[in-house]
C-alpha cells in the first residue's frame, strides 16, 4: 500500500501527536504512531493512555491498511527532510518504507491489533466554542493549575457547564483563576469535570492549528475535542473539585482601584530582594498609597511606593509577589481592583465586575 504526502502537510500534526507520546515507555507499542490508511484519508494517532491525539489528512490513495511505527524516528525523518519535499510511504508486512528524493528509510513496525485506542462512548452532552475564545480562556487560567500536588484533583482544570455558561477554574491552593463566559447555546445541562494538566497543555497547543469553532463532547470518563481535522481525547480526573464558594461569600472591604502597570512594575522591582523561594512582599495600605517592602535572608531590603485612591483604615497584608504579578499580567484593563476580605484572609484581583476573569491570591503570614 502506497501514498504520498507533502512534508509541510504532515509535519505539524505529527509534532502534536509525538508531543503526547511518552518518551520513556514500558509498552513498546505506546512509543509508536498508529497509522491508518482509509480511502483517501491518512489517520495518525498517538497516545499515552491518558491523552490521545488523532489527525486526519487527505491523501491520494485508495487502499485500506494500518500499522504502527516508532514515533520519534518517524518525526525526525519528516522534520529533517528538505522543505516542501514529497514523502512517499509504502506499508509492507513488517516494515514501512519512507522515501523522498534520494533518501530512503525502512522503519520496523509493530502490529496495530494490540494498539489500545480510546473507546468511544456516547457523549453526555456537547457544545461548540470558537477556538479563539477557548484558547484565551485557557491562557488566562491554566497557569494557576497545581503541578504534582498530592491533592491530585488540583493538577487539572475544572470545567463547569451550566446551561449556556462556561466556567473554568484552576488553583494550586495558593492562588486561583476563575473564568466565566457565555457560549451562546443552551446545553440544558449542569455538569462539572476535571481535565488533567497534561491534557490541558496539549489541548492548548492543538487550538493553535485552527481558527474555527471546536466541538467538545463530554463523555462519562473522558472528553473529546474536535478541532477541524484533529480529534483530541483526554481521560478525566475522577474526583470532586473542592467547593470554594465559601471564599466568595465572605465579607469584603471596598474595592481598591490601582493603576495596573504602576503596581506591576513596582512589584517586579521589589521582588528582586524578596526571599528567593517564598517571594514574600508586604503591602502597607495607607492614605493615598501602598508601600511595598521585601527583604531576604541576606538582610537586603527593597521598598516602593505606589499612589492609589484609598481612604480606608490602614492595613498590612503580605503576598507571594510573583503570584500578584502573574494575576496582573493576565488582566487586560489599565485599572485593576484589589478586593481584600475583611479578615485579610484572601484577595481578589480583577478588572471590573463584568470581566470574565478574576484571580484570587492567598496572602502570606509573617
Amino acid at each position, binding site marked *: 500500500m502506497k501514498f504520498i504526502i507533502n512534508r509541510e502537510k504532515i509535519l505539524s500534526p505529527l509534532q502534536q501527536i509525538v508531543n503526547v507520546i511518552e518518551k520513556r515507555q514500558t509498552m513498546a507499542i505506546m512509543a509508536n504512531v498508529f497509522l491508518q490508511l482509509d480511502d483517501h484519508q491518512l489517520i495518525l494517532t498517538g497516545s499515552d493512555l491518558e491523552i490521545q491525539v488523532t489527525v486526519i489528512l487527505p491523501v491520494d490513495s485508495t487502499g485500506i491498511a494500518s500499522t504502527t511505527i516508532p514515533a520519534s524516528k518517524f518525526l525526525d525523518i519528516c522534520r529533517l527532510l528538505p522543505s516542501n519535499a514529497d514523502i512517499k510511504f509504502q506499508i509492507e508486512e513488517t516494515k514501512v518504507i519512507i522515501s523522498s528524493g534520494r533518501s530512503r528509510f525502512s522503519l520496523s513496525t509493530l502490529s496495530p491489533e494490540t494498539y489500545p485506542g480510546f473507546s468511544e462512548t456516547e457523549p453526555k452532552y456537547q457544545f461548540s466554542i470558537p477556538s479563539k475564545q477557548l484558547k484565551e480562556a485557557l491562557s488566562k487560567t491554566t497557569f494557576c493549575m497545581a503541578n504534582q500536588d498530592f*491533592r491530585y484533583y488540583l493538577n487539572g482544570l475544572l470545567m463547569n457547564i451550566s446551561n449556556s455558561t462556561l466556567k473554568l477554574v484552576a488553583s494550586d491552593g*495558593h492562588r486561583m483563576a476563575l473564568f466565566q463566559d457565555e457560549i451562546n447555546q443552551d446545553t440544558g445541562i449542569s455538569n462539572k469535570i476535571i481535565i488533567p494538566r497534561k491534557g490541558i497543555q496539549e489541548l492548548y497547543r492543538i487550538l493553535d492549528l485552527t481558527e474555527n469553532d471546536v466541538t467538545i463532547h463530554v463523555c462519562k470518563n473522558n472528553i473529546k475535542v474536535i478541532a477541524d481535522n484533529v480529534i483530541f481525547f483526554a481521560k478525566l480526573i475522577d474526583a470532586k473539585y473542592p467547593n470554594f464558594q465559601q471564599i466568595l461569600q465572605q465579607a469584603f472591604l471596598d474595592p481598591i482601584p490601582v493603576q495596573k502597570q504602576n503596581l506591576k512594575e513596582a512589584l517586579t522591582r521589589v521582588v528582586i530582594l524578596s526571599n528567593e523561594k517564598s517571594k514574600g512582599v508586604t503591602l502597607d495600605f495607607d492614605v493615598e498609597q501602598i508601600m511595598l517592602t521585601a527583604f531576604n535572608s541576606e538582610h537586603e531590603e527593597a521598598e516602593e511606593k505606589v499612589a492609589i485612591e484609598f481612604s480606608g483604615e490602614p492595613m498590612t497584608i503580605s503576598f*507571594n509577589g510573583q503570584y500578584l504579578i502573574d494575576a496582573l499580567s493576565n488582566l487586560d484593563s489599565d485599572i485593576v481592583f484589589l478586593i481584600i476580605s475583611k479578615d485579610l484572609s484572601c484577595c481578589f484581583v480583577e478588572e471590573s465586575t463584568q470581566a470574565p476573569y478574576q484571580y484570587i491570591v492567598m496572602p502570606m*503570614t*509573617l
Partner: protein
Amino acid sequence: MVEGSKSSITDKLINNQVSNRKIIHIDMDAFFASVEQRDFSELQGKPVIVGGPPHSRGVVAACSYEARKFGIHSAMPSSHAYRLCPDAIFVTPRFEAYREASAIIREIFYSYTTLVEPPSLDEAYLDVSHCSKHNGSATLIAKAIKTKIQQHTGLTASAGISYNKFLAKIASDINKPNGFYLITPEQGKTFIENLPIRKFHGIGKATETKMAKLGIHNGKDLKKVSLQCLKENFGKAGLYYYHIAQGIDPRPVKTNRPKKSIGIETTFQQDLSGSAVILKQLQILLKNALEKTAAKRLSPRTLTIKIKYQNFQQITRSRTLTSPIQHGKAANYLLKELITTTDVNHRKVRLLGVTLSSLEKHSNYHQLDLFDSIS
C-alpha cells in the same frame, strides 16, 4: 589506565594542589564501650557490648576489645553476639555520657585547628596543614592530641596521619588501639598498591564481591583498571576509586556538614501487621521527623519511607513535592499514597523509617492555602 596517558595531567594538577596537605584522622578506641569501662570499674577487662539486650532485636552499637576477640563487631544483631559470647556484659547505651566525652575531645581538636570534620561522635578529620603548633609537625600534633585526650577523658584514641582523608583514615586503623601511624606522600602509592580491597574505606562487601569478579583484589589491581571500566561498573563512585588507586583524594576537611536529610527509624519488638497499624506508626515517625526539621528551621520537600519486612527484605518509597511538606492532613495523605505501592497489607513488618530530604531554609513567610480555610 596507566600513567602518562592523557588524564594523568589533570590528576597531577589535583595531586599537586592537595598532596602537600597534612590530614590527621583521630578515631576513639571502642568509644562507647571504653566510656562504660571507664565509668564502671567492674566492666574493665571484660567483654562489654553496648547496644540492644541479647534477646531483643537490637544491634551492637559498640563492643570492647575483649568482646571483639569473640568475633563480635558493631552493627551485628545482639542475639548473634550473645551466641558468640554468652558471658558478654550487655549494657544500654548512655548517649549523654558519650556526647559529653565527644564534646571534650572536639574542644581539644579546635585548640589546634578550626578545620575539624567530625563524621560521628567518636572520630574526626583535622586539616593541620596551616597549624603552627609543634613547628607544624603533624606527627607531634597528633601525639599531643592523643595525650590530651587521655588526660581529659581517660580514654585512648588512635591517630592516622597522611596527605589525604582516605589514607589518614586507613592509617588510624593500623595500630589500633592506642595506635599511631604515618603514611608519607612517598609511601602513599606503594601502601595503596598492597592494600586489600576490603580495607578501602567506602568499599563494602557488595562492592568487594563485584571487584573480585573483575579480578580486583588489591590497590595494585585497581590501579590497572581504566577509568571508563570503573565508571561503567560503579557509576559515580568509579571516579573516586580511580583516583584513590593513585593515592588521590582531593576531598577537603569539611568543617560543618550541611544536613542533607533527617531520618528516624524504629525496629519493633514485635512485627507489625495491617496497613492501618503501619500507617499509624509512620505518622508518628513523620511527626517526629518534621519536628526535627522545624527545630533546625528547615523545610523538607522529599519524603522517603523505609520498610523492612519480616524476612529482612528492605524497600523504600519516596515522593518529592513542589512545596514544603508540613505536618497535618497533607503529610498523612502522602504517607497513605506511599504505602499503597508496598506489600504492607499482607506482609509483616519489622522496621519502619521516615526520611525527610530536599531540605531548604525556612522562609519567614508562611503561604496560606485557599482550601485549608474551607472546612
